[in-house]
């Protein structure tokens, strides 16, 4: 058994496998022998097509699902230990894809208070945490509003505030922007980046949007239950062919350079954005 450095890693997967049983009693392996460590303060994006196992991975992290084999440790706590589930979820909070199906109260601030209330926090403390959380996500002015009147992006920010109020060290977001419009996606991304950079909260961000993954510290690409790529955005997105073969997008800049390299133009492999692409092409043209 590998030893886990409990100070550094907040989430550890150790040879984890999980299989679903589908409608026709067919066993579908969703996660196959995955091992991975996430350090405190990291912003990790998990990218994959539908069915790649990325959502399953997220649900294994906070004990919604228990591995069939292998162990998942959250701050050293084993998720298969029923007695620890409560503490695990106080460490790792989760934001789901459907903004509506995670809001329980009829008023924004009361929903954010739901988590701390469940934890038995003292009332005055809850008030303080709720106000702080709402300010952190920029929704303080909306605290007395009804959730159904908010936009998708605003609802997701309220959901994030609900987790913040529980003062978890880690937030897992399972495709939080899949149902949002571009503005909403931007709101959520900006909020989460700020929370990670300024408050040091570890972020595990599941998505299929390449332009979101590109903003993370580390990108993990999954395909049919296995991790096929794991590295910085630059390292990962330079593997244009690989990424496209698993049904994902790469930035247009990367793809353009990739195709031109195939045509014999001398361009670097790790172009990620428009500026880099322009400079690279200018260099190639002059040379």
């Amino acid at each position, binding site marked *: 058994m590998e030893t886990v450095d409990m100070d550094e890693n907040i989430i550890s997967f150790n040879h984890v496998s999980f299989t679903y049983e589908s409608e026709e009693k067919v066993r579908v392996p969703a996660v196959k022998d995955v091992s991975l460590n996430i350090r405190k303060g990291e912003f990790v994006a998990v990218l994959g097509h539908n069915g790649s196992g990325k959502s399953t991975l997220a649900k294994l992290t906070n004990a*919604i699902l228990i591995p069939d084999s292998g162990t998942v440790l959250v701050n050293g706590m084993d998720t298969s230990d029923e007695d620890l589930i*409560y503490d695990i979820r106080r460490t790792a*909070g989760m934001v789901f894809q459907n903004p*509506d*199906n*995670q809001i329980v109260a009829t008023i924004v601030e*009361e929903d954010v208070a739901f988590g701390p209330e*469940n934890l038995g*926090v003292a009332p005055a403390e809850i008030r303080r945490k709720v106000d702080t959380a709402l300010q952190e996500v920029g929704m303080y002015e909306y605290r007395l509003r009804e959730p*159904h009147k908010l936009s998708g992006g605003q609802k997701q920010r309220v959901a994030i505030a609900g987790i913040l109020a529980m003062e978890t060290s880690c937030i897992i977001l399972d495709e939080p922007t899949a149902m949002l419009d571009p503005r909403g996606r931007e709101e959520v991304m900006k909020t989460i980046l700020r929370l990670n950079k300024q408050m040091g909260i570890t972020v595990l961000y599941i998505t299929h949007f390449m332009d979101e993954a590109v903003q993370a510290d580390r990108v993990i690409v999954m395909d049919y239950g296995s991790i096929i790529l794991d590295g910085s955005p630059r390292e990962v997105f330079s593997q244009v062919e690989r990424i496209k073969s698993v049904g994902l997008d790469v930035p247009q800049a990367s793809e353009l350079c990739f195709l031109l390299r195939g045509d014999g133009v001398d361009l670097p492999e790790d172009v990620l954005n428009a500026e880099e692409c322009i400079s690279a092409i200018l260099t190639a043209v002059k040379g």
Partner: protein
Amino acid sequence: MVKDITIGQFFPGDSILHRLDARMKLVLTFALIVIIFVCKSFFSLGLMSAFVVFLTLISRVPLKTILKSLKPIVFIIIFTAVLNIFYTTGGAVLAHFWIIKITEKGLFTALFMAVRIICLIIVSSLLTYTTTPTRLTDALERLLSPLKILKIEVHTIAMMMTLALRFIPTLIEEIDRIMNAQKARGADWESGSLVSRSKALIPVLIPLFVSSFRRAYELAFAMECRCYRGGKGRTRMKQMKLGWRDFAALAVNSALLAGIVMLNIFFPSVIS
């Protein structure tokens, strides 16, 4: 279209009524409703009506909104009044055509009933206008908590009520969406027999049910992930504490009851 239904909508504000403890409000509303029916004379009903007007004024809820709450039951009021005018007999006869007799008692009873119903609706509406649904269900939960002795899951019931209230607007939006999608494929709820029109509801109800189950499923996970374990060990951010205002309200209500009983005794009217 469907979105315009407001069910006991909360009207944000800072009036005295808004600030009263929800439990006291619930109890006093109930008491007021009883008192409305205790009124047996013009004067006592008059006092009651004046009190209701007073409550409306201090709630600072606009008159237009109050009147909106009466809209759905205008028909009932008129219907009840008409029934009483024609069928309740007693006292002097005021008009007489054919077999229909309109008597003094009939007219007064009609008036009484109408005023009573209006007072009742306004008092109940004031409760929901000045109290958030969450506080109402909280108050209910706390008031009913002694029932735990009878093994009744008071907290679970209260949680269910809160969730229902939370999701009513969302479900209404969803109905709208589903109906529009079916309309775009030619579904028609306007023409045809009653049977065919009811059948036309199936394409709306089935998807609604299916999605509601999925919602419930996802919601349950979300709640568990926020460490929900039922009512055990839960605290509440918004505390309920009885303050001087609540006791003042109680005193005022008691005085009202006393006043009405007195007026009943000393100024009885035709309708006792």
